[in-house]
């Protein structure tokens, strides 16, 4: 068949074009991963001396309650941020797909949080939740009189987790919005018309036309967000270093207090395995790609 010949030709050309990239990626990605696996079987001293310890790093880790705690924190963080950015991004995309004045300006403005450098916006957020001068406590305590006590939301690790989630949603929903809007604009208008004729109101049209049309983009957004946020470090660490997600725990393990590079390597090996497994499951079972 002509089409399958074409597809084969394209595949061959594609292979030639990506070959150099595969080489570079191999060096930059595969080597560190392999080295990491290697390290995870050693006790590494600051001066560089390594002692082979077998699976000790792994058994230490699995016996460490802080490790399980950080897994729990990461799960909440992932659930909150992935759902939050996707839903908010979807809402923004649907809104920005309507016709209104200054739509183009609004479309651009929404992207701002995504462009803003983490380091500068983090301080803004810390200021918002400052227990003494922050606007959050001012509004909650002085204006709305919801409580009498000023809270240090970021100081307390439990509430800080939610501030961190909120921050991530605010900072990263624009990327979800951007991807979803691009797809939304290509949904044929007549599908909405047909659904309206078939008796569907706005909500029904969203449910039966918009969502099915966006299905794969939503799935892609979710996948990307999971991958990015499982490894997210700087946003969390800069805003609330007391929120111990997996990457933060790994960092403390490797570079703070008792330096334990071998232990940290073990964490990342486990994390890599989990991530690969998760993505495989998601792609095969959820997306059915």
């Amino acid at each position: 068949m002509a089409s399958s010949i074409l597809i084969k030709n394209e595949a061959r050309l594609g292979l030639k074009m990506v070959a150099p990239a595969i080489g570079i990626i191999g060096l930059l990605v595969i080597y560190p991963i392999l080295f990491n696996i290697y390290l995870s079987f050693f006790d590494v001293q600051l001066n560089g001396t390594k002692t082979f310890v077998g699976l000790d790093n792994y058994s230490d880790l699995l016996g460490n309650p802080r490790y399980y705690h950080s897994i729990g924190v990461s799960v909440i963080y992932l659930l909150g941020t992935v759902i939050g950015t996707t839903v908010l991004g979807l809402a923004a995309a649907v809104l920005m797909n309507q016709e209104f004045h200054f739509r183009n300006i609004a479309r651009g403005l929404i992207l701002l949080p995504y462009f803003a450098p983490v380091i500068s916006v983090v301080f803004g957020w810390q200021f918002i939740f400052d227990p003494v001068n922050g606007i959050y406590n001012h509004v909650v305590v002085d204006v709305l009189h919801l409580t009498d006590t000023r809270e240090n939301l970021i100081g307390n690790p439990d509430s800080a987790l939610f501030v961190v989630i909120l921050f991530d949603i605010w900072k990263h929903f624009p990327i979800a919005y951007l991807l979803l809007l691009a797809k939304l604009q290509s949904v044929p208008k007549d599908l909405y018309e047909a659904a309206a004729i078939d008796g569907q109101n706005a909500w029904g049209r969203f449910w039966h036309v918009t969502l099915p049309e966006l299905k794969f983009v939503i799935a892609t957004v979710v996948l990307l967000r999971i991958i990015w946020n499982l490894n997210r470090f700087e946003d969390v660490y800069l805003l609330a270093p007391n929120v111990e997600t997996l990457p933060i725990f790994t960092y403390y393990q490797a570079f703070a207090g008792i330096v334990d590079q071998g232990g940290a390597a073990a964490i990342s090996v486990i994390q890599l395995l989990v991530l690969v497994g998760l993505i495989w499951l998601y792609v095969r079972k959820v997306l059915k790609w």
Partner: protein
Amino acid sequence: MSSVILRNVNKSYGNLPIVKNLNLEVKDGEFVVLVGPSGCGKSTTLRMVAGLEDITQGDIQIGDRAINDLPPHKRNIAMVFQNYALYPHMSVRENIVFGLKKSGADAQTIKRKLADVSEMLKLDDYLDRKPADLSGGQRQRVAMGRALARDADVYLFDEPLSNLDAKLRHHMRTEIARIQHQYNMTAIYVTHDQIEAMTLGDRVVVMRDGVVEQVGTPMEIYLQPTNTFVATFIGSPAMNLFEAKIEGEDLVFDKYRIPASKIANVDMHNLASHETVLVGIRPDFFEDSALSLKRSPSDNLFEFNDIEVDLVENLGFDKEIMFKLGGEDAKARLDLRSHVQRQENISLSVDLNRVLLFDTSPQGMLINAGEV
């Protein structure tokens, strides 16, 4: 079922008027066919009835309620879109029953309707496919099925058979006619197909540039077109028009003198107020004089002698010939038994009861209007 009334309906995009002062009453159970050249506003009119376009000015009423401000999902209308608009993520089956389900039909009804529709539209083998895996004609049938499965007050069809082959089109046409008679559906049906317009319509609406030129039964439109636009738009090949001078009681063009008094419905007094008229003769109304078919003394025939044939096209069941009359190109459709040859001199006869006269104003209005 419900009637549909459009009162002084106008539609503009910006300053550009698209539909101008349209008035139309579709009675309960009536099948109205909308025809007109491409871009004349047929789809726009349907879409206003459906609620997909807002009305710039005027009123639309379905049954006895005004629906100007009623959103489409509350109008209980079924529609076949010109470009199908099937739901790509749903199977053919799901596409067909989607609206039916929404309307709250029970499982039994849904099953029965699906079976009816898929049998009628010959879709049985495709029910589990997605629209992307269908041919254009198959998609069009699904779109049709989606509308026919519904139990709507009004059915709107936008060229629903345009993509089917001749045989399937004929089958569907008769099916539509059958359903129409069985369920008495109120329908507005847009088509470019003359045969569909003539056979399906209780009444035909001819539009041009957003204006209704004529509304009438198919026979009225065919035999008594109100102006030259309708006369030449309906009927294929188009009606021949010859400009003739009025000399006393005769219409004169080329070497022919037609006694005006023998043409049906001519008011001689009125005719005298014109200097020239357009004589309209449908190609179908010419006969090969050599055949002398069905001729009797009471026939009101006029002979065009000495006509040179430019071209003969055999269509199987009849033949079309082209010739010159008064310097104009003209066409006639002759009986299969005619033996006319190219470049032969023949004479053609015309039943004067079928000859139409139009004035020479830009509108070209019919002069000899009468009973059909």
